[in-house]
């Protein structure tokens, strides 16, 4: 008889979803499917700029750089979504995992099992994502770039690229699950989250302020250079520095806002929401940091576009500006979509994680609507802070330009603002989608 590794044997034993757990399998699978589909679509779109014959005006290089930039921007929300999905699938079977520990399985075996499970769910989701990608391609093919529609043919990726993406998503899930396990204690008596010290040191504030001053100084020195290339270089530098600043300031800002909200909180839901963010500002930041990037880019790029729009003289420049605008909108929408999904997935996981607590609040007579409002607010408050705050940081970094853009091309900036507002609405919808999970948890509490 061949020896099957212990985790595999355990997996075979556990791989029988019980009644009611369908949604818990479906959620991470759906999230992974979406991740994969988005990656494939974006990759296909970016590839068109690499595979197409070089343009006569020499803009090919610029397009390639911009496409790569858009790809890079989506990596953060993508990784967040991937790890959220991985953690949800790891938590899903908490009780069974601790039972295994009770029965004598080693932490290593149980950990391997959790990682294996997440990987399989991710692989299943990724395969579904390929189908989703195939379904989305006809719509994406209608997008205009370089004065023409992209066309179906340009968007089909090679089988190798598709396979590599599926494998990449599965690997990401495995890595995230392994990283997620470090944050929980798997004991025979249960799985609980490790006590984490609240982060967000004041040092962040000092470093962040210094960086902002540095950027403004650099910009004022370079701002006198009028050429397009100089503006592009400055924008790129400011962009990279801005992102670094956002990452430094993010948790600190969230902690400060939540602290103020805590002092002002008059209702149970506001109190709970503020305390939830304060519990771990870094975690709250991690969940929404993808939005910081997107909002920041939207404002910086939007400003640049507005200026180029008004300065554009030749037809080629017009096309380029329109193309960049399309690219920015796509990047921002995709980022919000991913943050909405990961917020939904995270919340589903959190509700399941705290089923006992929610049941006890229900028994105390706390209305479901209040519990729901509390957990939604705990996400929406950081989302608002981060998207608006990042937009403001973006505007400050390219300050004189934003002011000019606002005057010469208000419509471009209005479009960006509308996209940001729509994105916030998208996250709200993602959270709404998890209300049934809470209702189901409470209903289970009523049966026991």
């Amino acid at each position, binding site marked *: 008889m061949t020896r099957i590794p212990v985790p595999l044997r355990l997996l075979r034993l556990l791989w029988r979803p019980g009644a009611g757990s369908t949604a818990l399998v479906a959620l991470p699978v759906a999230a992974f499917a979406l991740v994969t589909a988005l990656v494939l679509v974006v990759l296909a779109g970016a590839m068109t700029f690499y595979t197409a014959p070089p343009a006569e005006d020499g803009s090919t290089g610029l397009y390639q750089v911009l496409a790569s930039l858009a790809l890079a921007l989506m990596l953060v929300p993508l990784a967040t979504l991937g790890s959220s999905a991985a953690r949800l699938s790891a938590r899903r079977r908490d009780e069974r995992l601790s039972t295994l520990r009770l029965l004598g399985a080693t932490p290593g075996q149980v950990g391997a099992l959790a990682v294996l499970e997440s990987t399989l769910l991710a692989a299943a989701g990724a395969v579904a994502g390929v189908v989703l990608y195939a379904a989305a391609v006809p719509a994406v093919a209608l997008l205009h770039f370089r004065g023409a529609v992209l066309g179906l043919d340009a968007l089909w990726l090679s089988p190798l690229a598709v396979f590599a993406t599926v494998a990449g998503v599965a690997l990401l899930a495995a890595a995230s699950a392994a990283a997620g396990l470090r944050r929980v204690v798997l004991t025979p008596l249960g799985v609980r989250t490790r*006590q984490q010290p609240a982060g967000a040191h004041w040092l962040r504030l000092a470093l962040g302020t210094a960086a902002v001053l540095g950027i403004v100084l650099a910009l004022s020195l370079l701002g006198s250079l009028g050429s397009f290339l100089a503006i592009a270089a400055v924008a790129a530098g400011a962009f990279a520095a801005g992102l670094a600043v956002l990452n430094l300031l993010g948790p600190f800002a969230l902690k400060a806002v939540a602290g103020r909200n805590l002092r002002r*909180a*008059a*209702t*149970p839901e506001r*109190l*709970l929401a503020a*305390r*939830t963010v*304060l*519990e771990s500002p870094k975690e709250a930041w991690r969940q929404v940091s993808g939005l910081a990037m997107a909002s920041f880019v939207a404002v910086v790029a939007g400003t640049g576009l507005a200026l180029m729009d008004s300065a554009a003289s030749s037809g080629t420049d017009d096309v380029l500006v329109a193309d960049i605008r399309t690219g920015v909108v796509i990047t921002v929408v995709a980022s919000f979509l991913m943050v909405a999904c990961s917020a939904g997935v995270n919340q589903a996981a959190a509700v399941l994680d705290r089923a*006992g*607590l929610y*049941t*006890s*609040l*229900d*028994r*105390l*007579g*706390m*209305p479901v609507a*209040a519990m729901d409002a509390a957990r939604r607010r705990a996400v929406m408050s950081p989302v608002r802070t981060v998207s608006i705050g990042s937009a403001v940081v973006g505007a400050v970094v390219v300050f004189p330009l934003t002011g000019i853009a606002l005057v010469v091309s208000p419509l471009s900036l209005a479009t960006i603002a509308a996209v940001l507002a729509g994105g916030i609405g998208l996250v709200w919808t993602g959270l709404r989608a998890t209300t049934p999970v809470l209702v189901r948890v409470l209903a289970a*509490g*009523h*049966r*026991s």
Partner: protein
Amino acid sequence: MTIPILRARNLSKSYGPSTALAGVDLDIAPGDSVAIMGASGSGKTTLLHILAGIIRPDAGTVTYAGPSGPVEVGSLGEGARSRLRRGEFGFVFQAGLLVPELTAVENVALALMIKGTPRKAAEPVAAQWLAALGLAGMEHRRIGELSGGQAQRVAIARAQVGGASVVFADEPTGALDSQTSAEVMTALLGATSGRGRTLVLVTHDESVAARCGRTIHLHDGALLNAGSWEPRTLTTSVPAVPAAPPPAAAQQPEQRFVQRAVLQPAWDPMGGAR
């Protein structure tokens, strides 16, 4: 003749093929402390949940003699039972089930805030309750920074801060060692029947049940000994304090309770502190 504060008649409840309760009759007098005992699966938690309006019986009635007249608990809708629970009842669970992100005082104040009390008014009352239960100076600790016995006393404060007429406790000492368990029971009895409120608790522990005014035993969903439901004279060391006025005037009685709790030697508020 006292009117029972809770009157259950012919309660039945099944989960699929298994019968949890089979025709239980029970009267509970106001101010009494009743321990429900029985083996695992005997239906004691189901009985507690039906009495508290958390679940509905398949058959039978539970009548709660509230301040605004008798209420048939089982016939109320989900929302009305939620209101009844947050208005009239208090709960203490085995694992405390306090909100881990909130401080001790916020956890207690939450129960008042759910009822609509402004936070500014809720927190001082909550702090007084914590002090009365021997947790003075620990108001701003988070739940993870408290011992099991201390967390359970926060839960007791949360159950009584709103002036609940009846407190339901499900294995309130189940996770504690015997000495801490005794201290928590002193706090629980002092905060409930010691103040003329009613306590209904489920327990496995004979020594916990012995502290209560009355013990009933369940076996396979049926009562073995309903006994006399009229309150018997307590022989435990619970301070005999008069019933506090209704929760609307919470502030003053709570203050008096604080003083009594501190002055009464039998009521040892610091006993459980680590």
